[in-house]
């Protein structure tokens, strides 16, 4: 990869940027989930690696979160954009060279950002923990170059219309820049008090709602029709999905602060808009499920379809939780408990990760023209992820309900900690399974690059049988 950084754009093979992004994403996924497993161990066994400032839980928790969001998830998005956007425009990526530099600077910036966070150099704001110089770096050397590449590729397309996936890509890369610059403004301009508190959650909500959710869904709009060969069930439902994301998903930021002193109208408004998130969610899930018509055997046989459909199915409980848990009727009980931690993992490790993993599997095989090295390893990856995640989600949901009950029945806090202990161990086991699965995945993709059977010109990888 690195040898192409100073090559002429025309001399760089198509897909180089996507491959660079793809492997970077998998490596960050291994790192991010490894840190998650380590952190979970500390919650289950508080004296595990103790008395060292650099391995303290409070220094490492945010490194895990930022590594999976801006390393794994966002880089997998970039990988998908680098190969899906040109494919859908019947053209080449506008600049492979920009893509390669984008990926290099992304890895450098993220490494720098996570290192300073690890050292305790933090803005102290959840999800926007990076100090503001790192935020500026990410905006100007990560997201703006990515947006330029995606937008120029779409503008230079050789098709008349723009396919659904590319609407989402184009809108999301634009919105994430706005979210980054506005959401971090308390740090740039030293805004204080409730403004700071509100903007923290404005950022946290919108980075999920206007970046992670729509891009993950956009990927499914590509992978399912592409692999199954069925056309997308409905372009119109796609429209409904897109417009309801822009209108409804961009407004409920304040529902993260339902118990904080914010203007009441703002909380009520956010809460109603929060329920309306069900509109894009139902549109998306039904559209994908109906696209599968007649091809459900691929849910069993094909690894990309299996990952994508599992992710889509997880969007159902995700949005049912998300839509209703933020209403006052439910929020007072579960706010700030493990229930929310479980929900966040359902969004990022359940729904979103499964869709991106499919895109990375499909993309790396397609670009490298190599059949997946081992179906067995891929199956193990799938099941370790699914079982590990399920253990995590179930145990944290139960722990959250215990905490909620403890909160309202005035149980002494330490009794809640004691009651949660078994679930903390289960959470660590679940997280460790996910980490193990990802190590297998990295090995599998590496072997695919080196030893995978060559896919003949004009063929898709899924048309070939698996060999191992």
């Amino acid at each position: 990869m690195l040898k192409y950084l100073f090559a002429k754009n025309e001399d760089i093979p198509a897909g180089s940027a996507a491959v660079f992004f793809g492997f970077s994403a998998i490596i960050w996924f291994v790192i991010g989930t490894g840190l998650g497993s380590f952190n979970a161990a500390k919650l289950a066994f508080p004296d595990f690696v103790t008395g060292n400032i650099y391995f303290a839980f409070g220094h490492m928790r945010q490194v895990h979160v930022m590594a999976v969001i801006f390393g794994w998830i966002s880089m997998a998005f970039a990988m998908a954009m680098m190969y899906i956007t040109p494919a859908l425009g019947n053209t080449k990526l506008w600049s492979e060279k920009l893509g390669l530099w984008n990926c290099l600077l992304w890895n450098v910036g993220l490494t720098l950002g996570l290192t300073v966070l690890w050292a305790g150099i933090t803005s102290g704001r959840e999800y926007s923990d990076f100090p503001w110089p790192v935020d500026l770096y990410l905006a100007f050397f990560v997201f703006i170059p990515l947006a330029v590449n995606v937008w120029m590729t779409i503008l230079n397309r050789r098709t008349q219309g723009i396919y659904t996936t590319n609407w989402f890509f184009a809108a999301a890369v634009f919105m994430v820049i706005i979210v980054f610059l506005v959401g971090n403004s308390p740090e740039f301009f030293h805004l204080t008090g409730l403004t700071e508190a509100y903007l923290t959650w404005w950022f946290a909500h919108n980075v999920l709602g206007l970046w992670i959710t729509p891009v993950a869904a956009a990927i499914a709009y590509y992978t399912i029709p592409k692999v199954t060969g069925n056309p997308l069930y409905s372009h119109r439902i796609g429209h409904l999905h897109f417009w309801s994301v822009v209108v409804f998903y961009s407004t409920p930021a304040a529902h993260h602060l339902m118990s904080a002193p914010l203007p009441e109208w703002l909380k009520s408004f956010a809460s109603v808009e929060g329920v309306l998130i069900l509109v894009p969610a139902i549109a998306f899930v039904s559209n994908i499920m109906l696209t599968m018509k007649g091809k459900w055997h691929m849910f069993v046989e094909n690894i990309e379809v299996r990952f994508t459909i599992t992710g889509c199915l997880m969007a159902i409980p995700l949005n049912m939780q998300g839509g209703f848990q933020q209403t006052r009727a439910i929020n007072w009980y579960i706010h700030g408990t493990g229930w929310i931690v479980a929900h966040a993992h359902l969004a990022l490790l359940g729904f979103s990760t499964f869709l991106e993993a499919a895109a990375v599997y499909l993309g790396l095989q397609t670009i490298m023209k190599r059949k997946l090295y081992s179906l067995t390893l891929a199956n193990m990856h799938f099941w370790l992820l699914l079982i590990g995640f399920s253990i995590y989600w179930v145990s944290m949901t139960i722990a959250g309900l215990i905490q909620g009950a403890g909160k309202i029945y005035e149980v002494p806090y330490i009794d809640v900690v004691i009651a949660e202990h078994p679930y903390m161990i289960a959470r660590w086991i679940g997280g460790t399974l996910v980490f193990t699965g990802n190590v297998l995945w990295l090995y599998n993709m590496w072997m695919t690059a080196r030893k995978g059977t060559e896919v003949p010109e004009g063929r898709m990888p899924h048309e070939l049988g698996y060999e191992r």
Partner: protein
Amino acid sequence: MAGFREYKVGSRLFALAFGGSMTITLFFPSINIASVSSTDVALSKQLAVGHETGFNLEDPFLQGKNKPVVVALKADPKTGQPLADAISVFVYQPGTTFPAGILHPRILGQGIEQLSVEQGHITDAQKAYGAVFTVSKGTYQGKEFSFIDNLTATKGWMPADVMHAAKDEDISHAGAGKTYFVREGCWWCHTLLPEQTQDWQVFGAPPMLGDFNGESPTAFGSDRKAPDLMHVGSRNSSKEWLMMHFFNPRLVQPHSIMPRFDYLWGEKDASGNKIDYDKWRAEYDDYREGKRVSPPEVPAYASDSEIRSLIDFMLSLK
């Protein structure tokens, strides 16, 4: 270039939809929030904590630099005359950045702003000379308000005078403590926001709209795995308990899952002796395994250690 010719309507609708939601979620709340007046809590909190406790260029490594101290003053530092009532003053040594309320009195709110500027002379405070502030009461247009009083301007008390008169036990490093609270990630488990449930009866009153003016970061926390700390200083004000709990929480609460923060003691203890952590941990392990009857003594912390500031911050959370 195919461009967006056929997407004119779509592009404009997008601008309308996205612009509309930004107006409702950013512009409208900003009008509301900007009109919130500071409560007494917000005034004393921002004076105690100073300008910024997250990353900032004056203290990039979050070492508790560039912070004020709070001094409980019993006598006039210039004349030595005893004061009728002991007062809390907030001492900004020369070069220390003032909090947002001093730099931008507008955020204090109607009445408080005018009193702080006209009677409290806060706009006369200069970073190069430092300043001593307190919270006083005054009336503006017939209503009583608390306001920020710049004692350096109104009484001529210089930071050095106050520090000279103060004894170490009268000084609180709560501002530096808040920095460590942020750096060590205490807020990943301990919220600073009792919720609107029966929580109130255990963890105390929830905060009010104006309790946060001038504070950054607010560090409410969202993932509560431990008791809320907003009023912890009222529930438990024992320095000895806090000291043991920070050094190894399992000394006072066997089921606690809190990490040990013994590393905040630094190299040396209160009497200047080097702290032998390995020895302490070995002895503690022996105690856990039943080879010792009692756990080893927790070393007394030095007065300039990080843990001292963090405990001062805990005690300031009334």
